[in-house]
């Protein structure tokens, strides 16, 4: 019995290691796999690195060119008294930080930066396309991310602008729920923006659409309930007083000393 057990091969994990391999060959295979993966990543980096460097160099060079162009333009326009000449033609309703000279100088600078950005991205794209055939999805995703960031910024700015507009209009209409209304509009736009951003990034898929529909509908319903039910009396009073005030009229007495029955702003 003991002799029989001594003749049996040692117990191995048959799922991970082939029967004909010893421990040394497993390590060798692991090392090979690691080397191959490391080589692939290095190859990718080597392929992409020139593109990244070209991108940075293009951006820096064109930023520097933009600074020079902006400086020269600012000097030239100041020397030509561009602001004064323009003010003579169409009035001088410019903010101090936004004089025509300043705007032209800034525009030229940012145009150069944008040009550098375009050239850099183009160089990056070229080096990526010719460098390797490795399946990476970094560049398309990066461009989507930039688009999504721009969408987010625009959405937040629009939300803030609309929220302020609604708040001021509601306060001037003397609606007690002005703040709620303003917040509602703000969140409507923010939710819409968030949904657009996620859709642009292709994150979430149908879940985002569903969640957006629920949230958007929920906010609209909340606002409708707040305005329609919660403040019904207030709205009717506001509307009545608005009608009374818009119909204001003044009686002009002959001697100019009589009393006015109502006020008149203009």
């Amino acid at each position, binding site marked *: 019995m003991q002799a029989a057990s001594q003749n049996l091969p040692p117990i191995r994990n048959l799922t991970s290691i082939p029967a004909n391999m010893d421990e040394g060959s497993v390590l060798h295979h692991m090392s090979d796999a690691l080397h191959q993966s490391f080589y692939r990543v290095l190859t990718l980096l080597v392929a992409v690195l020139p593109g990244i460097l070209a991108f940075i160099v293009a951006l820096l060079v064109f930023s520097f060119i933009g600074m020079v162009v902006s400086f020269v333009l600012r000097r030239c326009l100041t020397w030509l008294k561009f602001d004064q000449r323009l003010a003579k033609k169409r*009035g001088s309703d410019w*903010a101090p930080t936004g004089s025509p000279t300043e705007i032209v100088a800034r525009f030229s600078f940012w145009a150069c930066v944008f040009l550098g950005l375009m050239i850099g991205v183009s160089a990056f794209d070229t080096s990526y396309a010719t460098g390797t055939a490795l399946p990476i999805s970094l560049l398309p995703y990066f461009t989507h991310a930039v688009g999504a960031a721009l969408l987010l910024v625009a959405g937040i700015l629009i939300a803030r602008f609309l929220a302020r507009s609604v708040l*001021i209009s509601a306060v*001037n209409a003397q609606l*007690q729920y002005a703040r709620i209304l303003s917040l509602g509009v703000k969140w409507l736009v923010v939710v819409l923006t968030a949904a657009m951003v996620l859709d642009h990034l292709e994150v979430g898929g149908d879940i985002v659409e569903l969640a957006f529909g629920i949230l958007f509908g929920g906010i609209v319903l909340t606002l409708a309930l707040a305005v329609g039910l919660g403040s019904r009396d207030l709205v009717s009073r506001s509307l009545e007083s608005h009608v009374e005030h818009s119909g204001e009229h003044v*009686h*002009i007495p002959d001697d100019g000393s*009589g009393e*006015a029955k109502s*006020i008149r702003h203009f």
Partner: protein
Amino acid sequence: MTTTNPIPGQSTLAPPPAAQLLVLASVAALEELETILAGLAETFPPESVIVAAQNENAASLRTPLRVVPVAQPGGTRRLTPGDYVNACDIAREHDLRAVVMLGPGADSLRRPALRGLAGAILNASTDLAMPLYALPPNTGLINSAILYPLTRALFAARARFPLALDLAFSMRMAERLAAAAGKVAGADPDDAILWPVNEAVAAGFSVDEIDAGPREIPQPAESDINAILAFVTGSLFSDIEAKAPVWQRPRRPPALRRTSAPSSPAGNEADVAHMVEGFRLANANLQEIWSLVLPPHTLVMLKRFSAVEPAAFRMPENLWARIVFDFLIAYHLRTINRGHLLGALIPLYLGWVAGHINVTASGTAPERHIEGVASAFEAEKPYLVARWRWPDRFNA
């Protein structure tokens, strides 16, 4: 040797006097124009006046005056930049010395007012004559709260109604106004306001004020206070911004106006409680926006006043002056969107109106209170100049 006159009787006749005065009547209704023409015919020698009427049927009216039809503006109820250009062109064409412009509702003007306006230009060395209307209390409150005090404090000109519907000016002033109208009029010429007093001061011309008595003020096309305040105040702020080098120079304040006999105070019938409620609501909700425009101590004072009972509500004159100056600076610096800025000013203005009604209800003559407000604007002018030059000094 004696000479004989071949046509007896004609040598003794003087040549017909040349016309000296142009009256541009910006009225649409024919009956209104008829009344104005009758008044002018009674006030001036017919041969000395040329009337430019913005009415296509004006030629059909029977009048001893010479009537010239001119293009009708787009139905606005005030003088537009186009009116000033028209007036200048006609006056230049006929080689006239003075122009009187009459706005809508001018048929309610009395004869002495017409005579006074024209006489100030023809007989005195005045370049711009502005009317001083006798309006009932609580009328033209935007003018009393903002337009008049700002114009008086910044341009040191005595003009109780800087945006009057009628005015008279000399030829050189007409040229100046026409040039300014060419700059102001943008895409829609009817959608712009010209500020004659500011133009006159900027040009170094003399300005006088003529008692014009009562006058009917027509209802503006837009009755919404939000739209009117934003439009008129925004226009004045823009003009002040464009003329910053002019008003920053130190000027001697105009002579004190002789306040007429105190008019009977307006009854507290207007909805003061309603306006104070609006002010409180704004104080609770617009802090975020006001804090971008107003310094902290002003916000603290506004908070304190919002707790006062409506009947005792007052807006101190110097506080109101600083508020308007702060809004003017924010308008200049574009701290926030200009539409939002002027919208945020409305509840504060309503607070001032509520305070004004309370003050007049307590026995103070409205004109005395308004003069007090204008004096406060003059006293606070250094604050405006300092912040205009150094905007970062928020708590000056």
